[in-house]
């Protein structure tokens, strides 16, 4: 009887990780001098730190079965808010506090629309995405904020690093690692984490089973808003420039990273360590392809194809799901001939 042979459980669970190692190996052989060096890897972690913060906090939202499409626009808006604060003479502390407050308020708005009013997360955050982008463009007049008005200690944070023996660990890498650790502990070890997974597993059963769904969904959007705000500040500090659309690429990449991470879980649940691998895949691809001087547009095409491939393979091998008839026929013919 034709049937897709069951992929070994090992391959199902670690396929994406193996793919990641293959990508690393490929770049290593292509650019033996530069790719597999400590400075380059430190560089990769810094390049992916901003995406990492957004993706890690996005993981929490996706654990409950929701999405937050507004994170990129929020990151841009937060840069403009902090920049405008600097322009009107605020100090670093005040500007950062204001920026985080905006992230918190934006997240709370998303949570209110989704968990309170009951709009689907897709529609609600698509709406707030547009609002946040409009706010950023309006406040800034469409122009970038840069130059002397930005305090030196703010922009030096994004370029700074901590010397640890031989190693210079960038501040941004450290910050992303801190967020990663926080999200990991929340999801894996706390009661809240368990409840978030229950909501994502079966919303109605979670409610009937005594979980306060609205509150927790609200909380997850607030966390994601805060994550976007932190990422926006990191981006602003790193570039010493706040442009009203500079965070836009983050949202799709963050969601892609969570999806890549879900392929590494036997129940296909979002999990933050998986998200980390997803972020690493995206970061290594960008770094390696740039080193090979491949056009950034081509890079986008390749990245998209790799995401589709990983998710396809993992859904094919998931328990209970069988390959489509034509594929099974194809495979069984191959085996017999």
């Amino acid at each position, binding site marked *: *009887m*034709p*049937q897709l042979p069951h992929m070994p459980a090992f391959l199902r669970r670690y396929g994406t990780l193996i793919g990641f190692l293959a990508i690393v190996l490929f770049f290593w052989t292509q650019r033996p001098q530069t790719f597999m060096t400590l400075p380059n890897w430190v560089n990769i972690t810094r390049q992916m730190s901003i995406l990492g913060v957004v993706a890690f906090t996005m993981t929490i939202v996706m654990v409950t079965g929701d999405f937050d499409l507004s994170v990129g626009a929020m990151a841009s808006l937060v840069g403009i808010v902090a920049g405008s604060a600097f322009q009107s003479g605020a100090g670093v502390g005040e500007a950062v506090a204001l920026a985080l407050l905006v992230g918190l308020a934006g997240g709370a708005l998303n949570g209110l629309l989704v968990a309170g009013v009951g709009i689907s997360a897709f529609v609600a955050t698509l709406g707030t995405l547009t609002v946040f982008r409009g706010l950023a463009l309006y406040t800034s007049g469409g122009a970038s904020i840069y130059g002397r008005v930005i305090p030196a200690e703010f922009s030096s944070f994004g370029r700074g690093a901590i010397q640890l023996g031989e190693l210079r660990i960038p501040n941004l890498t450290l910050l992303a690692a801190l967020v990663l650790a926080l999200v990991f502990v929340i999801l894996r*070890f*706390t*009661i*809240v*984490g*368990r*409840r978030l*997974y*229950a909501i994502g*597993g*079966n919303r*109605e*059963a*979670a*409610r*009937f*089973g*005594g*979980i*306060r769904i609205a509150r927790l969904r609200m909380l997850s959007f607030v966390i994601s808003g805060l994550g976007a705000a932190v990422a926006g500040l990191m981006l602003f500090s790193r570039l010493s420039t706040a442009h009203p659309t500079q965070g836009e690429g983050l949202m799709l990449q963050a969601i892609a990273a969570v999806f890549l991470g879900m392929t590494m879980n036997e*129940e296909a*649940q979002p999990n933050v360590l998986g998200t980390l691998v997803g972020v690493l895949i995206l970061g290594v691809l960008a770094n390696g392809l740039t080193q090979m001087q491949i056009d950034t547009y081509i890079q986008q095409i390749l990245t998209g194809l790799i995401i589709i491939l990983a998710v396809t393979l993992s859904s094919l091998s998931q328990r209970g799901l*069988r390959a489509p*008839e034509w594929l099974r026929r194809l495979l069984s013919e191959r085996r017999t001939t």
Partner: protein
Amino acid sequence: MHLKIRRASKAYAGVPALIDAALDLYGGEVLGLVGENGAGKSTLIKLLAGLEAPDSLEARLNGARVTIPDSAAARRLGLRFIHQELAIVPALTVAENLFLNNPLPRLGGVFVNRAALYTLADEALRRLGIEHIDLRQRAALLSPGDAMLVKIASAFIGADEQQPLIYIMDEPSAALNQAEAELLYAVIERLRARGCALLVVTHRLHELFRIAQRVTVMRDGRVVTTQKITETSAEALIQAMTGANASQLPATEQVKTVPPAERPLLRVRGLRTDALVSASFELRAGEIVGVAGLAGAGRSQLLGALMGIDKRRAGGIELASEALQNPAPADCWARGIAYLPEERRSQGLLLGGRVSHNMTLPHLSRFRRWLAMMDRRAEDRRSQQLSHSVQLRATGIQQRLRELSGGNQQKVMFARAILAKPRLVLLDEPTRGVDVGAKRDIYRLIRELAADGAGILLVSSELDELLALCGRILIMRERRLVDEVPTADLDERALLSLMFAGAA
């Protein structure tokens, strides 16, 4: 017509679910298939339906060798299935649901021929003798019983009156009340008379003796015996199913009457929600009170109102003399109310989750350590204890719920209910789709809970169960609680007529 199945085997992840099973279906005959949950009945049906690939299977239809690689092939062979799980799309109309597994009538090859759709759908329902379901209504509005009837009717869409088919039904009557089940029996008899072959899986033995000519018993993945129905008895079948002596089975014990306490545990006055017109009653600690009614009478809605699932419009609820003011389900659990919903798979369980996680879900704050961390060792320990007290059959507390049989899934729900020593337990069809052995364990658990001083409200469509377990039965009709009767002077016939009174 003769469908001959031999050497049917299937293992999941190395664990055999079906071992060398053999089965014969003949035209003009109903074969009953019985066995405890996990005996391999559903697996066998999935192989026949082409939903799972067998490890080995030899099938012959009228002597010719056939294979069933997918559900389309099963359909071509003339096999029609009514599966255990409700496959209803809530957003579609009843008529559209009837055509889910069937080609829609077309207009010009592209458009759906609505007129023909409704005519054919109407015909299919009429054939079952169903007249109370509106074809244009969204399936979301159907009660579970009506949804099951719609699903059953869908197997008869496009059935050629001349050409007899093979019908395979997995617990078709599980969600039906007595009146609806009668409709089903009539249809089965009509199909049989027309020369169709039928395979009916059931947990209701009295049903088996009504409709089947032969019966096949399965246990632990094997076919144990196949007999003519006239040559066997319920006791013999139970013994074959369980491998145990029939005398160990649930006896209808004498119901204990609880001495009236000074104050009732639960006092409900004029309760009303959008789905419930009115209910007033009292419940004492240690008492098991049944709730009887036809499908759609509002039994589940009564529990939903008590649990804070539906918003209360009027009336009052007092638990141990304390008023419950519009609580959320979370508040109810915290106050000591435990709830087992009717649809355990969609409303109760995290099917992808572990046994332990499902047991502790409403009680997570009891396992709090510093900084709201989970005390996972305490959780595991408690889950182990509970698995033991509900006699759970699983590979361990880490097993995923999806992999457990229906009866064991329900035992996990009971473990959840008893974790925090509840004061009030709301049970909605606790033994539906559960095998004889698990049923016995569940009855024992219910009695133990009551003996421990919990008040129990039990909704059930199985009248013998209500009569055997409860001291009093609340009667519901048309979303109202209309009557309350002690079971001492009640039999099934009398109870049934109370449920129907006024409706006829």
